[in-house]
């Protein structure tokens, strides 16, 4: 049996008096698709921020690919984000003055060295071969999100963290993005998706459900369907 790629043990995050995460524990196996679900304010984004090295835990232990990230300093966390994490955000978060190609290359630049051909191939994989030179304002929401997915994948991260990736998309674009996520999953990528959408939740291998910062349920939609 393979060792889990993510281990979360008794994770706590406090913002002053508010306990955003309260003794949350779960593991993620390599290649697994996890949907993190729950109502607003349940701690989903806080959890994904800690897993992505954007925030520090107040207590508990988070190990990603053998690295305990709670102990890392700012510089090491930056390296960790560059090496192991691919982010997809609800608001896409592309640099507005860089082209689609350059936005992907930016992630390469911060990781190691840039490879324009490889970046162009990543955009071709998400169906944007004819949009390489377009800046975000010239792309639709769905296209922007696909650029963000290509950017998230370019450095072969251990973990793809997506925070409401279809939250700002219409149905047609949502379907395209979900298809891409399914393909990534099929290709063996480990994906953690924060979502309100039951449809996306149903695509995941497991659902981690949070309420008021507590883990209330881990379920397996595929088993339920059977």
């Amino acid at each position, binding site marked *: 049996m393979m060792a889990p790629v993510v281990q979360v043990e008794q994770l706590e995050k406090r913002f002053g008096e508010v306990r955003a995460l309260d003794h949350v524990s779960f593991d993620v196996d390599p290649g697994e698709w996890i949907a993190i679900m729950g109502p607003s304010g349940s701690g989903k984004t806080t959890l994904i921020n800690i897993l992505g090295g*954007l925030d520090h835990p107040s207590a508990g232990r988070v190990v990603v690919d053998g690295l305990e990230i709670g102990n890392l300093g700012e510089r090491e966390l930056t*390296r960790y*984000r560059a090496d192991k994490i691919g982010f997809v955000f609800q608001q896409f*978060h592309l*640099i507005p003055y*860089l082209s689609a190609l*350059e936005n992907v*290359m930016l992630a390469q*630049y911060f990781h190691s060295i*840039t490879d324009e051909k490889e970046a162009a191939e990543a955009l071709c994989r998400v169906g944007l071969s004819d949009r390489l030179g377009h800046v975000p304002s010239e792309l639709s929401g769905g296209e922007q999100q696909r650029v963000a997915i290509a950017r998230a994948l370019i450095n072969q991260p251990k973990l793809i963290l997506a925070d409401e990736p279809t939250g700002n998309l219409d149905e047609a674009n949502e379907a395209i993005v979900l298809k891409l996520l399914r393909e990534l999953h099929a290709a063996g990528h480990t994906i953690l998706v924060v979502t309100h959408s039951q449809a996306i939740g149903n695509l995941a291998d497991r659902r981690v459900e949070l309420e008021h910062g507590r883990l209330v349920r881990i379920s397996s939609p595929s088993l339920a369907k059977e």
Partner: protein
Amino acid sequence: MPSRSMFLRILWKLLGASRGRLAVALIALTSGAAVCSALLNVNLDAERKLTQEFRTLGANVVIAPPAGGSEVPLADAAVLDRITAMHILQIVATAPYLYVAANSGTQPVILAGTWFDQVARMNSWWKLEGGGVSSRDDHEHCLVGFTAARQLGLAPGSSIQLRSGDREISLTVAGIVTTGGAEDNQILTNLDSAQALAGLPGRVSLVQVSVAGTPAEIEGVTRKLVNNLPGLDVRPVRQIAAAEGTILGRIRGLIFWTIALILILSMLGVLASMAALAMERRRDVGLMKALGGTVQRIMRLFLVEAGTLGAVGGLLGFLLGVVLARWMGERIFGVAISPRLEVLPITIALTIGVALAGAFPLRLLGRVRPAEILRGE
């Protein structure tokens, strides 16, 4: 692709994306650099020009017989021929003086016999009312110092009788001269006339020499005169050299503080633009950090951007400054200031420094927390 190419690619896009704000910063930098370059050019060139101007402010070397005994010491006028024979190119003018105590009626008066042509060349700033005397052979006219003219009630065209012992001469006042010096109390006339009145043919009290050049060159001429004129005192006029040094020092100080003030004002202009730019770039910096960009790497981008802006502003400012310096030179000194190439690196270095100091708000972006930015805070 090497990382440097990507760095330049991002930098280029960054410059294009923020061109409005950067243009404002560039204007501030260019204006500051232009004034700075103009003043530096003026400072370097004007020093030379002012030194030349100072050379026209009277004599800077005085040759006189050594003091001794109760008699007023006098030198042989042949000293003038010896000075001429030395062929010293830096000597602009040589004016002998013989001072004679005379009387105009019952009023005592000092008569100074000299060479008018040399006096005029040496003292171009003297204010003259009426006509001048330009020839050293003019035995009929005299110039009367402002104070002496008032005491004796003289005006241009007046006649004056001067007596010394049993000798007398009669002169016509050509003009009233204001010098701000001892000459204001004297009557200036032809050397031969003064020698005749005093009964001292071929004698002079002293010789004033005007030497052009740097303090070192003047020192050299003085040494040469000392060596060639044994038995005479050759003294540089220290007060003029000191005054020149003081004035040049003050001008240099004024220019230094003006440059400092201008650079501070430019920096404030850049600071205002960069503060607005920093607000616009918070999200981008948060995102870059989330993607694994280190603070150093992101800041390098902004500092090179500011440095580039400084270099461009410095270069443009230098060129504008040269034009400005020429205009100032013509207006203030009446001469064209020649651009000095050494001002270019100084201007560019100062402007880059100002740009980097003005980019301080961008450096604060290093503290941005990506989680907060990505949440939309």
